[in-house]
């Protein structure tokens, strides 16, 4: 089954896809920005400061989603003995890391008008900062180790350690008293957020997801060309 996903077979698609994804990303982002900055209403308590939610929340969601995917793919790499899983994980990490930084910085900017402080060591913020450190360690591991087997083991180990932090981030607002409010959006039950705010949030999430797909494709193609460059050296 995995033969269908071999780099040699999918390069034709991955090399052509970025330009279409970029176009779609620009369209969805434009719609999302108009919705988030112009059309969506202000909050009765937070006023216009609530608009920061439209970049902060999608960035946090995607950063968590990417780290979970990295862990799952790394484990699959070992279980199915397929290098392509590691290559996909490695290509996903840079956008996940940047989304993590965006979530922290925009959260800090949002904190000032709503809580009166740029930073607080509350459970949600601290656990997000820990995730940044795991992303950084994961990326550094790929930079400093040359031997394939070693870097596969170390990066998988880092991702497995880091995944323990993901449920802590998710449930930190329920387990501890934090400055963050409990989740407003639930997949299984009714969300407490009004549709006039939910739709812009979902559109911005779609735009961010398209951007991470774009970066993933570009990074994946770069990694494939790097491998082929090494192959030419051996000829």
């Amino acid at each position, binding site marked *: 089954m995995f033969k269908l996903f071999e780099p040699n077979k999918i390069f034709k698609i991955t090399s052509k896809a970025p330009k279409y994804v970029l176009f779609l990303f620009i369209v969805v982002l434009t719609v999302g920005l108009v919705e988030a900055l112009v059309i969506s209403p202000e909050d009765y308590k937070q006023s216009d*400061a609530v*608009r920061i939610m439209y*970049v902060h929340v999608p960035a946090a969601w995607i950063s968590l989603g990417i780290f979970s995917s990295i862990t799952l793919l790394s484990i699959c790499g070992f279980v199915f003995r397929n290098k392509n899983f590691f290559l996909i994980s490695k290509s996903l990490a840079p956008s996940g890391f940047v989304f993590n930084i965006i979530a922290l910085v925009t959260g800090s*900017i*949002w904190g000032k008008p709503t809580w009166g402080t740029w930073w607080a060591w509350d459970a949600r913020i601290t656990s997000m900062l820990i995730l940044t450190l795991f992303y950084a360690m994961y990326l550094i591991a790929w930079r400093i180790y040359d031997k394939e087997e070693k870097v596969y083991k170390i990066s998988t180990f880092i991702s497995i350690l880091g995944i323990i932090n993901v449920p802590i981030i998710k449930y930190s607002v329920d387990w501890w008293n934090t400055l963050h409010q409990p989740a407003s959006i639930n997949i299984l039950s009714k969300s407490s957020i009004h549709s006039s705010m939910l739709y812009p949030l979902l559109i911005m999430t779609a735009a961010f997801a398209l951007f991470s797909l774009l970066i993933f494709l*570009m*990074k994946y193609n770069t990694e494939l*060309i790097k491998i*082929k460059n090494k192959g030419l*050296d051996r000829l």
Partner: protein
Amino acid sequence: MISELLFMNGYAVYVLSAFSFTLLSFLGLYLVTKMQFVKEQKKFVAKFGTLTTEQANSAKSQRINKEILANALNN
């Protein structure tokens, strides 16, 4: 209406700086990734140019190498 939009009840500095940081991070990551891609592509084309005819034919037997060359020439 435009002044209302730009003032945002006094929160514009926070809202616009959060959006600007996000968009600048996107632009930065896109440019860095694009530069890395172009660099590797150029390296590939340069290495391919140094191969002998026999080596080049052997390399071209792999479809992915032909795709990389074709894409590099199109860009």
